């Protein structure tokens, strides 16, 4: 948790956003993040983000579910309390398949969603700074982290030159905190 100073540029079209991100990355300024109202394909490559490994986590959760189900049912019906059901073998694999499948999916889905929330640091009650009220509507926001030595005017002029239709400087919490969205935080200057 740290309060930092940001230069913020707002764009109204993703076609302007892509060259702007290229310019920011080449300029040497520290790109804090880009906020978009919907997923923009190719943005992660443009920003140089790594591919996410979320699906690998999903695979691992799924395998856990499979082995839990098979192991549990086999243990119960062969060791813990074997019962004869209609003359079927105690270890009747075909009859275990449906539950095994369901638990595989359940573990994978629940695990992945929890991991997703953890990685993104989102949860009910979590608050994050919103740089522009329309960044979830139609505005594409680029935030540059400013150090003490950066000249604000220079950065803002640079951002304007990339096609931003609105630029400003904001001091804000860079991470999340517990809070409410109906309250203005004291240090927000926007």
């Amino acid at each position, binding site marked *: 948790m740290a309060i930092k100073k940001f230069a913020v540029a707002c764009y109204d079209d993703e076609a302007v956003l892509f060259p702007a991100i290229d310019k920011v990355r080449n300029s040497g300024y520290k790109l804090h993040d880009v906020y978009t109202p919907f997923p923009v*394909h190719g943005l992660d490559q443009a920003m140089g983000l790594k591919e996410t490994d979320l699906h690998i986590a999903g*695979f691992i959760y799924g395998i856990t579910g499979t082995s839990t189900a098979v192991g549990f049912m086999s243990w119960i019906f062969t060791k813990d309390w074997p019962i004869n059901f*209609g*003359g079927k073998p105690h270890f009747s694999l*075909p*009859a275990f*398949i449906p539950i095994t499948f369901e638990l595989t999916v359940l573990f994978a889905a629940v695990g992945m969603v929890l991991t997703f929330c953890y990685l993104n640091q989102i949860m009910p009650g979590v608050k994050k700074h919103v740089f522009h009220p329309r960044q979830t509507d139609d505005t594409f926001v680029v935030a540059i982290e400013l150090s003490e030595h950066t000249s604000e005017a220079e950065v803002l002029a640079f951002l304007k030159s990339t096609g931003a239709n609105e630029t400003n400087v904001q001091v804000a919490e860079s991470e999340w905190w517990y809070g409410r969205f109906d309250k203005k935080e004291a240090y927000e200057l926007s």
Partner: protein
Amino acid sequence: MNERFEISPRLRNTSLALIAVGIIALVAGLFNLKLSHDHVDQTRFWIVLLHNSVFFAMVTVASIFILAATSLAQGGWIVAYRRVPEAIGANMWLFGGIAVVVLLSIVYFFQIDGHNPIFHWVHPDGDAILEGKKAFLNPTMFTAFTVITVALWSYFGFKFRAISLAQDLAPKGKTKLYFYNMKVAALFLVVFCLTMMSTTPWLWVMSIDAHWYSTLFSWYNFASSFVSGMAMIMLWVVYLKNQGNLKIVNKEHIHDLGKFLFAFSVFWTYLWFSQFMLIWYANIPEETTYFKVRMQGPYSIIFYANFIINFIMPILILMARPSKRNYFTVTFMAMIIVFGHWLDFFQMEMPGPLGAHWHLGWYEIGIFAGFIGLFIFAVSKSLAKHSLVTSNNPLLKETIIHQS
């Protein structure tokens, strides 16, 4: 766009060599098996021909089906290599024709001591169950269904290709043929429902075990032949790409085909499991005889191989994204899948007539090779006849920028 495919001498020679192997196997089989006095040998001669001809006919119709399905769903991804299923479908008459000849020969000409070892229903001889099915299982009905089915399939195979070729010559931006194609596709689906999804596998495959019945059987056959049909398309696309053709095809398109192989392998498994588990669970003797001989009898090795090749391998190898975008893995898996479903049909068809005396020897492999050779030969001829890329398809530009 105009892009020509020239049959390389190597491809032609390979296909001709395979056809030669097939012919040698057929001739040798004719002398060795057909003229032998051993009943099992005589049956083997015919059932292997039935196995391969039915398999290739169903694999070919899978191409026509995917054309119809993607036309109706307005699928842009397949347009880049649409000529491949079109070329396969245009050879429906050939593989369907072979199947008709083989099937009708078996029904009308093959008998040992007054009964037919493959289609027992041809001479029910007082078997009460077979007598009961006589209204459906009789040579006339069989002939009529078989001939009409193959004729319709062949017609649609030609038709889709003809529309696509006509679109090439149509003025730019005209979509009349495109929508006409959709109508033909809808009509084909009706035909497909009444043939491949119901009657055809009942008559061609299920009636080999004439006492046994399963309502799911045709859908299961469809899944098996469809995924191998997609694998065949994949093999052609990769081959053409390797030859420097199909420039607009890239990894995105390969990825999509790979997804189809993956998804429909799982779908096949789903139907396989549904049929197997319900029969296993209810444990009614009339039904379990089918799996008894396959799972616990002499065919158990094929039964498990079938499951491993057609389910475990695709799900493990094709699950990851990179493997679906890798030309080597998809080619390898496509070959595995074609072989696996060939084996699937093998285990459906052999136990009835041959019992414990099944072979996977020179004759089976030889005939399979011959069919592969003929498939390569015929499809490459069709591919070389016209441009490899459609010209005026309204979805062509979409397919160029296709993202998997």
